[in-house]
């Protein structure tokens, strides 16, 4: 799960961007999963990827790669199980 974040101050340089770029910037002010952006813009992953790679080149966004080793933490998994039980009890 790759996450992206808008670089602080990036919104000031939006004059030469396409509308989709601007929307993406707005959506990823906080770290946001690329999959979520696909759902929000209703665009296929392939399209989102190319838009994001443009923006990364221009240093408008930072890309955070997943840290898979975190899933070896039983405490984290326990938190997930407890959270699912709590949230979806209704």
């Amino acid at each position, binding site marked *: *799960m790759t996450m992206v974040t808008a*670089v602080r101050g990036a919104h000031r340089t939006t004059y030469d961007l396409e509308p989709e770029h601007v929307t993406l910037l707005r959506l990823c002010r906080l770290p946001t999963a690329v*999959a979520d952006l696909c759902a929000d813009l209703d665009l*296929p992953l392939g*399209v989102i990827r*190319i838009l994001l790679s443009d923006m990364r080149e221009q240093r408008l966004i930072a890309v955070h790669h997943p840290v898979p080793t975190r899933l*070896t933490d039983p405490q984290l998994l326990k938190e997930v199980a407890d959270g699912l039980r709590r949230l*979806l009890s209704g």
Partner: protein
Amino acid sequence: MGFAGSYQDSHAETVPIAIKILIAGGFGAGKTTLVSALTEIRPLRTEEDLSEPSALVDLTDGVEDKTTTTVAMDFGRITIKDDLVVYLFGTPGQQRFWFMWDELVVGALGAVVLADTRRLADCFPSVDYFEQRGTPFIVAVNCFDGARRFSAEIVRSALNLNLDVPVILCDARQRTSCRDALVTLVEHAIRLLATSPDPVSYAR
């Protein structure tokens, strides 16, 4: 320049931990129903008709032979807390889309394989796939109306599953039933962590 400084600043934000769970099973086994029952606010994302713009991306990725395929994938989200989010990915059931699985499975916590007892053989490929990859998975038998009820043990035996793979009965239309399937998977993954000295299957 100042811009570079800002770029560094963005790393100070807390990046949420994203937990990926796959929902697999044969065509029509209830994957979409299950994801719909659990996802919070987002509409389901159905990805289809990889079009001209994505063809460009696929070319750069060296997967140009896949540009003409039509792909359907369900996507759901459950926010546990601000910095911990579970993502559900319904895997494409059709075998010709299996190239997507290899990407989906990387870093996944595990998979729920939905089984339809009327067409049990449809979930064989999913079971084989996760067994071979060493991905934690459980089998959830979707109890359709009108379908003959089988016990979990009969399904386990029919699928030739190891004794440590949980098999549960579920109703994909019911939220609590779907939740139980996810919780069963997460607890299974925790047990595997405790028993396996080598957590390599998670790291891949």
